[in-house]
């Protein structure tokens, strides 16, 4: 009795992120131009008849950069589908870079090559049951 709730478990690393997961992108290849192919699916595909669309960005780029560029091209209404008014990517907007999920839009992309394929799709917002 009398043990502080938060003192029972201390120092456990069970759920800790593996070391280096959040490490910044390596400096190598900084500012190198990179061609990014963006595939828009579902509702988002209505924005343009092209699939993919090609964006010219600089390495390292972030998903936030891609979102901003798309917003610039297809307008605020498009942007509102993928981001909240404060610019944060909506959770049901799913982005994949070369098949890997990109969860943090602010993280530099480690595509490791001169081109990247980016897929964006909106998933179900609501559910019951």
């Amino acid at each position, binding site marked *: 009795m*009398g043990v502080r709730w*938060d003192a*029972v478990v201390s120092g456990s690393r069970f*759920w800790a992120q593996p070391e280096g997961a959040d490490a910044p992108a390596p400096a190598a290849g900084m500012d190198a131009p990179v061609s990014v192919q963006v595939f828009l699916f579902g509702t988002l595909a*209505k924005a343009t008849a092209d699939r993919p669309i090609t964006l010219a960005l600089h390495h390292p780029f972030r998903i936030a950069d891609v979102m901003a560029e798309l917003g610039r091209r297809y307008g605020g209404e498009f942007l509102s589908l993928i981001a909240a008014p404060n610019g944060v990517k909506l959770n049901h907007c799913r982005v994949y870079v070369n098949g890997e999920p990109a969860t943090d839009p602010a993280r530099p992309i480690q595509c490791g090559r001169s081109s990247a394929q980016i897929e964006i799709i909106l998933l179900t917002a*609501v559910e019951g049951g």
Partner: protein
Amino acid sequence: MNDVTAPTNLAPARDDAWIATSCALCYSSCSILAHRVDGTVVKIEGNPDSVVGKGRLCGKGVSGIMSHYDPNRLKVPLRRTNPKKGLDEDPGWKEISWEEALGEIATEFGRVRAEDPRKLLIQRTTTVTAGRNPLYAFGNAFGTPNYSTAGGGLHCGNGAHLISGIMHASWSVTPDFEYCNYAVYFGASKGHGAGHAATANMKLAADARARGMKLVVVDPMSNFASAKATEWVPLRVGTDGALALALCHVLVNELKIYDAPYLQAKTNAPYLIGPDKRYVRDAVTKKPLVWDAAANAARPYSEANSADMALEGDFAVDGVSCQPAFHKLKEHLRKFTPEWAEGITTVPAANIRRIAGEFGREARIGSTIMVEGVNLPYRPVAAVAFRGAQGHMNSLYNFYAIDLLNELVGASDVVGGCLGFNPACDGFPETGRPHYVPKPDADGLMITGMWMGYHYPYPVGEPRMPQNAGLQDLFTMGMTSPFLDSDDQEALWTQFELPYRPEAMLNFGANLLMSIANKESVARSLAKYKFMVSIDIFETETTRFADIVLPDCSYLQTLDSRSNFPFIFSLPGGMGEWCWPIRQPVLPPEGEQRRFQDVLLELADRIGFRADMNAAFNASLNLAPEQRLQGDRRYTWEEICDAELKTYFGAQRGLEWFKEHGLIKWPKKPEEVYWRPFVDVRVPIYWEFLVPLADKIDAITAPRGLKVPRQYYEPMPDHLPCVSHCCTTPGFDLYAFYYRDTLHTNSYTMENPWLDEAAQLDPYSYTIAINTNTGRGKGLHDGALIWVETETGRKVQGRVKLTQGIHPEGLGIGACAGHWGDGMPVAKGKGVFFNELLELDYNHVSPINLNLDLCARVKVTPVQVRQ
């Protein structure tokens, strides 16, 4: 094999196989073994290898065979010939070929998609959990945000799921049966035949009962859980929140029992609240401030030691006077005295004090226990609510107030406490998948690691001018929306300038006419659809509104790679094993039945969005890079299932492996089950975010004539009455409510003749329960035929069952009975169609989470039998 001397097969080998697959008689999706002999399934038993059901099945599960072989099942595609749609209209079905049916649907849906994909509503039943992904992949690829799940959230958990998500990172909550010593249920029956992980929980609850767990059941009716309870606490319908608030008050203000270290470390209790009801934030980091007693200064919550965070006291930060959230809560609770609650709930004040004391003392605040070698906080009490308590106007606060009991004593996701269903999973050891765990947002509050949809319950979405027909993007605490069917939908759409109108519906197995509210309102909304496709196994009342009906396969004829995933939904909580079963075909389709998954893939091809569909599957199934579906390649449903299974369990464990083994399981770790001490997240005991939310919604709605009722958006829970509580018309003296009958809950089993037979033998399943004394006072007797009528003149007829086990003001009816259609002849005319009593409009739903109120004030009159 190549032995030419062997005799040719004179008699074909006898087919005799036990096939491991999954039930789908309710959303619990228990693992089953289907015994097939010579092409006929002769028995269904629970799969003892599985954690889902633990080798045992409920009555529905063992009876599934009769649903499968029901001769009333649909076998050919049908097209309507009568253009008029209505409750009394005969659709004039004409049998058509699949080619015709699919061609017509592709044309219609193609047109809608070209015009505005949002015009399509995808509607599905909750019964088949695995129906989720293919349908939503279809919808995501199609480009519509409009989904609805049967009566879904309306009838189960716009409150329960939302708050379980915000407070426990899960779809629902359960006592930690293995360790809990004292559980209080509010309108819930976990472990007594209904709810998530229903069958597995029945055993867990029975074990707990045998071990001596005390169970207090708060419910207007003493039926399933109450029958096994240590104590039944009857209360006036819809007042659970008031009782919970009084219990909280007694704990905090009278008994001073609360887990301060938990509140400091794992909730926003120490966050400082200003006069504007908002957090006082750090000027630089924008983080909420706490009062650091060690430093005697306000500091961002992330920079102070939990132990030093003040829970009470008046402070001033930069001239702003503020108090910790807990201080606010404590003061707020003072008005909810047991005496006050007695007047509202009818529960004697002395009982409220006693129960609060028992709960608080049994919480054993400060104690620890070893589980599999890991030392953990031990709080063997749980307050658990579900449909009954939160199915009201006050849905949100009712559930919030009840969960506060857990939060106050630190009994959240720790040993013996109130557990979410598996909110954290470290993954299958070989692949590390699926991996999810709650994480903090910028304010330190918990974001769930896994959800059934992709719009998480927290952080709450930003309200906007609605793009969704259900207006959930305006009322962002809402989940399933009544406005998809309500009487005032057109008025609301006009008022809030919805830029389109729903025109087409794809319905998978939902019987909306019976599962929402009164049938006239729902019928009007259904009749508005220009084109409706219904994929079903029976011609339900709703299917009769469809333009094209497609005969689906039953659960014994279909394939699902995730029959019971996500784990937050219906895998038993607590220690034990993770378990991923599949569903696989045991029998071929009959007639022209086709699996709906194949139909959806085919439609995507025909309409021309296969690439989008592949992308949607990639995203929604979270396929590993090497398993992703490529471009617009055509994949079979088998290939997609195979890709998912390989994603989670490695290349060697694809569909073939699972077909042979049926499931895979691995042990849970204490750090997963009792994750909360290990993960640095806090949950809100003070819902600060509701304050700006109300402003934002109001900014949109007020200029358009709808004032947001602020009392529903206050950051601390309150008792807000239902419409039924405000009725003063003489004669309307009973509160009608429905409950979930073990025999039929979450299913379509009124049509199953074995279950129907059992329900006929049951005293309550098909009758109207009224308190014996109340009933006698009205001159009623068992079996008397009565009308139950609301103030607005909606009425249903049924036979009385007088019982001592119901609140004197209550009138209880088993849910989802009273079919009237000819497509399900066994079900027709059985029981009472409760929902007919429910109004369906803005005034009868919670203005914050859109939960439809399940109770109605009624009067009863004997039916005059014409001689």
